């Protein structure tokens, strides 16, 4: 198992995923807009390594076209096999310059991308576009109590270390010494 993983390692690194942006028709002229719906355009290309969960942005092109800030844009990717589109929705305002954009790439256990996330927040010192690779987290398991181990005598094995002779009888020795000192004064 480990060996096969090692063998696959060179291939596993640096997968690439392209994220697309796809405009939604404005809600008031649904019928006319359906015909003139623009096709998806690539917005970002992301290289990622599943094992280290590090993703790097190779290219980023903000969506072109003048949209009102309320206009909804779909961010997504295409299914590698079926070609189905999958993704989330955000507003055009998120691509304004004062915000930091963040792409979240959700990968499954086999390292394949299955979903994308997008958020925009206030820009701080860092880059304008950030990439995060999110793996599936394991669900909680019951935290079992430790089993009670009995020894051959059927008693609880106490791990307490045996006390040395000195530790056990120091008081007797001390008493003896004191006694000796006290008694030795008569000469």
């Amino acid at each position, binding site marked *: 198992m480990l060996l096969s993983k090692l063998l696959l390692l060179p291939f596993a690194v640096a997968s690439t995923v392209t994220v697309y942006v796809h405009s*939604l*028709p404005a*809600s008031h002229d*649904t*019928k006319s807009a*359906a015909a003139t719906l623009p096709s998806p355009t690539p917005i970002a290309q992301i290289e990622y390594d599943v094992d280290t969960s590090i993703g790097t942005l190779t290219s980023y092109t903000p969506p072109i076209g003048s949209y009102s800030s*309320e206009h*909804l844009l*779909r961010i*997504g990717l295409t*299914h590698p*096999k079926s070609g*189905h*589109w*999958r*993704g*989330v*929705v*955000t*507003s055009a*305002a*998120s691509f*304004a310059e004062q*915000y930091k954009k*963040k792409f*979240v790439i*959700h990968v*499954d*256990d*086999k390292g*394949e991308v*299955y*979903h994308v*996330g*997008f*958020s*925009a*927040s*206030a820009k*701080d010192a860092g880059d304008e576009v950030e990439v995060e690779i*999110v793996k*599936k*987290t*394991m*669900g*909680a*398991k*019951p*935290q*079992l*109590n430790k089993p009670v181990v009995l020894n051959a005598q059927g008693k609880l094995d106490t791990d307490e270390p045996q006390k040395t002779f000195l530790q056990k009888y120091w008081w007797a020795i001390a008493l003896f010494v004191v006694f000796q000192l006290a008694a030795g004064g008569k000469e």
Partner: protein
Amino acid sequence: MRLNAAVALAACLVPAAAIFEDDAYHIDFHHALLGLPKHDATFFQKPYPASKASLLFTISENSTIGVVNPRDGALVWRQAPSPYASGNGLLRSGEDQDTVISAIGDRITAWSSSDGRVVWEATADGAIVQDLEILEQEDGITNVDAKDAIVLVGDGSQGVRRLDGKTGRVKWSYQDASGDVPFQVSSSPTTIYYISLHNTLLGGSKLKVTSLSPITGKKIDQYTLNSDSEIQDHEHILFAGANTAAPLLAWTDKANKVLKFNIIGTKAISTFNVPQSVVEKIVLHAPGRVNSLPHFLVEYRTATGLSAEVYHVDLKKNTISKAYSLPETTGKGTFTVSTSDANVYFTKITTEETTIVSSVSHGILGRWNVKGSPNLAGAYPVHGVSEVVVKTGKPSAVRSAVLFSNGQWALIRNGELAWTRPEFLAGAVSAAWAELPEEETLAHELEVEGHQNVVSAYFHRVQRHIRDLEHFPAWIQNIPKRVLGNLVSKPEESTIDEIQHDTFGFHKLVIVATQGGQLAALDVGSRGKVVWSIDLHQFAPEAVFQSPSVKAFRGYVEIKDSAFKGSLYVNSTTGGLLASKDIPVQPPVASEGQSLISFDLVDGILTGFLGAQSIPEAVWTFDPPAGERIIGYTARPVKDPVASIGTVLGDRRVLYKYLNPNLVLVTTVFDAARTASIYLLDSASGQILHTFSHNDVDISRPIPSTISENWFSYSLTIDSTSAATSRGYHLVVAELFESAIPDDRGPLGAASNASTLQPSAAFGDAAKPHVISQSYHIPQEISHMTVTQTRQGITSRELIVTLAATNSIVGVPRNVIDPRRPIGRDPTPSEAAEGLTRYMPIIPFDPKWHLSHRYDVVGVKEVITSESGLESTSLVFAYGLDMFGTRVAPSFAFDVLGKGFNKVQMLLTVVALFVGVLFVAPLVKRKQINTLWTI
């Protein structure tokens, strides 16, 4: 001292909310249902030979075996089928036996008649049991011991088997390799007849009768009857003489014009013409006892009336002759047959009267007028069974268990309705809490006032109050009645008026739709009384209902089904159909400048849509990883009030709850890898907020989940054959917070407005919650879970879980499954002050948590909860095969007086004190004056 003891007692009670003894059977109800009884498998029978009274045995259309006490309709015992059972349910009983034998699918079981315990069980090895008979006599001698069963199996290895009546062991088996369709078995004192249908090339069927030796199972003889011109379908065979004195075969043609009889064992066919020209249905009633007279009755049902002919069989000459006919009467009804010694009696049951005739002559021996009942209004008898008491050669009393066309199973004793059982409710597939129109109107008016400016709202309110004055005289008149009713415990009546004027809001209507297309309204507050019930077929005559779904709106319910296009709108208070123009338009609540995103599961992909847009353009989609399939999703309830936005810690700091109204929990399984995953989505944007995955999951078991407030829970089964350290049933609870740090509101801060679509002006990732979760072992599998609901959400919540293995419903207190319980150490004093206890890996379901206490709530499909008028109390209703309703108070009934409170005593005390004051006041006054003068 006494106060201290009371406080200590109260402190002990707090963690264990339980049902009090005096509340049980009062606040809750249980309809233990069977389903519609089958005609050929319903009978009166003594549970053991020496018994004085008989019980009513039946197997229903959903294969539930039930025994009912004919006196009051109470269930004696019941055996619900396993959910995997398929095929026809059969139930037979021999005379003077203490067992009944059932066959469902491939399982043949003998049950003890009096208590329903299993005597023996046998399987047909994958084949499906087609027919079952009891061998009453062998070589003309009645068996005194346990009578053997004759079983006809098909679908697999086809043939006849004889099973030992004591053990269920196969005595002999006869294999039939002809490939004919097995139909029935029948026995005569000397022979067993196996009847099969031989399909001819032209499409008709020939009846093939094979006689077998009862002792060896060897074939004695075989003959074929030329019935292929008439029998096109199973339905055309009227009767195949099950264990009568005269084993008969009777069939008719497609147009119900001609009747043909064959006495089994002979090859002759007697032909009779049907007297009426247009007959809708022909039913043959023959006595089921071997030693009764060989007489039988043929019932003709027309569109308007009912008539019958009685035939006699001459066993010596092997001929059939018509004895007499009963004239046609208008009105629908049915006939039943009953025996007393060798005599045969036929009972005619219509909506108006019950009459008895003997099989020998047409003279009416008894006649009783049937008194109508609101439960049976508009319904007519469909089929029934009767038991006749004969004194000095004349029938003196008759009781009939009759299934009515509205699904009520009733017992009519000498014309009096003894009881009814609402069997049509069994197999409910959808239910919703009805919202009554009146209270909603008030809510609407208040809403209007809330949106106006102060002056116009004031005028609106004054106008409303003036309008309300017209109810004032009636209200004044009602006061004495209501006060009296409060003092003396009033009978639990349930009318719509009562429900509307219910102060505590316990009387709430549940609208239930059944698989068969029945719709009923139950009052949960008055022990599940059926307020109204209708058959949906009257509104959609052609539709064959698959699983209608109910959705409640203000004053009406919407019913949808795949059987018809569009929806039906039914008034929630009366059950009447509403035309679409009567329905007030209720657009989805979206304020100005906002758009609504709805979502649904489309082709296994969760897809979000923009509003009620006509073009189904997906806004977002969630497609699980390759190999995984979505098995279910749960959204946060639409009405989920939260009283506090934070959890107060022991040291007075606050953990802020992540309260997103758009949370959706999606459950997926990966069949090949045996993993289950839970995805927490934001349904506005489609973003994944959190994921959980579990390995070694037994994916054949249910994974129920629920989400409420800022927490969700789900339950799954870890495969017992896996290598996981903790296998079995797990309950996982997760809680969402805005931040892991107390007193911190995360990136969003105290902003009152946030959007997952719009960019946030704050630093950091705003949309992601901080998730804390814990998992517990539970002793039983959970088949469904939900959360209690209260009016303001102040009362702590309870997780209501359904345990299918023990047929019970359990309310798990929220603090027991708090994911912040400290693991591996005792709680610190501040955690203890919060009520957190040390984590234990196992949650035993405390018997005190069982809401269903002694009830056996079988086949629960779903549990729904609703707020009541009181903040402390939530209403719970479970449906499926059974109906169960109760109310729970997870933080105790802090806002209502208990049953033990004596109002009369309180009034008397007040009066006594008042009288005392009247007497003492002059004395005190005089004393005060005297003290003034003494100085």
